[in-house]
């Protein structure tokens, strides 16, 4: 950071939602002499993110949760000061209010319920410090909750889930970005046909990959319930997972149930399996990175998301016949994922083939970065890549820098990427990457992609696939196929 200048400015009593702030931050970051720009509400978690990125000054450290921190790192003091001025102008521009369609927008939950008396769900995505309060209030008014907010203290999560159980409500999250209830995609989810498969998932892109694979192959989803990334931790004890299993077990429209998560602790897994054993329905257990363990007789273990979809479809084999004619190589695989669980699935496939991988989000058996291992599979949606920026599913340009570096790296033989479609996601991620490739001259690695989506999604699955193929990208029928194909290209001496 030598020679760089960090400037912070605080605006007291200023609130704007995080996506709007990220857009403005990117605008400022694009101006000359600015190395990094971030505008964030001064919650403790945001301040610690800014600090770890070297963007927090003593002044910014004094901000509270009702203050906005404008943080700039510039090449010179002039550039940083100029950027502060630009940020101020951007913030002062007149804006449309949230969801403004010219009508009145309620500022309080009770007014919103008065406008929509049959409301039965609150989607909450306010800063984590305030999210539990909103959820408590929503549940007291009889609303189920889907909470996208993260950085919610774990004791608050436990208390919310206990409240939900008492009231007969579903508490999805915190950190739940994807669900489909009664055919309605909520958050980041796909327009999957309805059918007999129920899903309970602690992972957003895991839910999306399994539901879209089922949807693209003639099946359908009754309900897909997100539980939040921490639900199967020891502290939370699988509270929402167990409630969701109960609800799907009773649901006459659900015949089979798929559970998707990172591996839980042994104790929590046993608790879940004990509940599964009491059901008359068939379960597919997809705890990515876990060894097949002793499951109840009505359950099948699925080591990958694709295997979970195959089992849920009654044991079919998906994507047979996919064979990209790609030469073998001694060089590296670089995976740049928008979907965290898609990154985890790819790691599991490499490890099962005996190939070591490193990741910023390693599954059991994989290594953290910085161990000199050849193959890197990165979750670019993780905090360290998205500080003050939108998630790569919303804004694919946030992975441009990493993709450009991989394109010109002669040591990279294969670039593995995912495209996540659906509501909430970018409207043309394939067009974005095709545009990036069109601007690239010279040799480049083989690019293997998978597209998580269905035809009825706003981005239209077959059109996205066609755009990628036209740009010279191999499109695999699933993320697992793409990872397997990458594995098969690596010469055994690299394994």
């Amino acid at each position: 950071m030598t020679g760089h200048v960090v400037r912070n400015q605080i605006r007291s009593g200023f609130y704007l939602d995080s996506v709007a702030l990220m857009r403005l931050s990117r605008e400022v970051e694009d101006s000359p002499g600015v190395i990094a720009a971030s505008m964030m509400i001064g919650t403790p978690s945001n301040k610690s993110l800014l600090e770890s990125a070297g963007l927090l000054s003593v002044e910014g450290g004094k901000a509270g949760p009702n203050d906005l921190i404008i943080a700039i790192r510039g090449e010179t003091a002039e550039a940083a000061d100029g950027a502060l001025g630009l940020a101020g102008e951007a913030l002062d521009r007149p804006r449309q209010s949230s969801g403004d369609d010219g009508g009145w927008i309620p500022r309080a939950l009770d007014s919103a319920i008065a406008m929509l008396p049959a409301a039965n769900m609150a989607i909450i995505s306010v800063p984590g410090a305030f999210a539990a309060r909103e959820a408590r209030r929503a549940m007291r008014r009889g609303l189920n909750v889907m909470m996208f907010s993260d950085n919610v203290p774990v004791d608050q999560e436990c208390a919310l889930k206990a409240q939900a159980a008492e009231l007969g409500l579903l508490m999805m999250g915190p950190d739940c970005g994807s669900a489909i209830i009664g055919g309605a995609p909520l958050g980041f989810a796909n327009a999957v046909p309805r059918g007999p498969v129920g899903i309970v998932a602690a992972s957003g892109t895991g839910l999306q990959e399994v539901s879209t694979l089922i949807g693209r192959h003639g099946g359908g989803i009754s309900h897909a319930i997100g539980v939040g990334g921490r639900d199967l931790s020891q502290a939370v004890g699988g509270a929402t997972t167990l409630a969701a299993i109960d609800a799907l077990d009773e649901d006459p429209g659900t015949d089979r149930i798929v559970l998707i998560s990172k591996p839980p602790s042994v104790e929590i897994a046993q608790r879940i399996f004990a509940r599964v054993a009491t059901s008359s329905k068939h379960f597919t257990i997809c705890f990515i990175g876990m060894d097949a363990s002793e499951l109840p007789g009505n359950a099948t273990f699925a080591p990958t998301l694709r295997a979970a979809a195959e089992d849920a479809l009654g044991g079919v084999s998906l994507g047979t016949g996919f064979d990209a004619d790609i030469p073998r190589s001694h060089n590296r695989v670089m995976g740049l994922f928008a979907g965290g669980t898609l990154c985890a699935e790819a790691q599991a496939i490499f490890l099962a083939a005996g190939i070591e991988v490193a990741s910023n989000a390693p599954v059991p058996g994989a290594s953290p970065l910085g161990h000199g291992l050849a193959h890197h599979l990165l979750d670019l949606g993780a905090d360290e890549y998205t500080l003050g920026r939108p998630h790569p599913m919303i804004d694919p340009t946030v992975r441009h820098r990493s993709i450009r570096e991989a394109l010109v790296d002669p040591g990279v033989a294969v670039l593995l990427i995912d495209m996540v479609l659906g509501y909430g996601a970018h409207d043309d991620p394939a067009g974005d990457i095709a545009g990036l490739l069109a601007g690239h001259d010279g040799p480049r690695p083989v690019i293997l992609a998978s597209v998580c989506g269905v035809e009825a999604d706003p981005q239209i699955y077959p059109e996205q696939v066609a755009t990628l193929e036209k740009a010279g990208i191999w499109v695999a029928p699933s993320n697992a196929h793409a990872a397997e194909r990458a594995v098969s290209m690596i010469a055994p001496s690299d394994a």
Partner: protein
Amino acid sequence: MSGINLLQSKIEVVNIGLPLFAEALAVQDIPVVQVDWTPPAGGDERLIELLDLLSE
């Protein structure tokens, strides 16, 4: 018995936070009302606690 009857109901949503979630529901004709949320009580935690005590 889960006691949860959400799965048998038609979804109607109050969206508290990012407008993009409400926009995605509106284009699917799912009933949704956006709340124009700002931190309560100016973000003052003690004042929020007091307000909550009063409202209960």
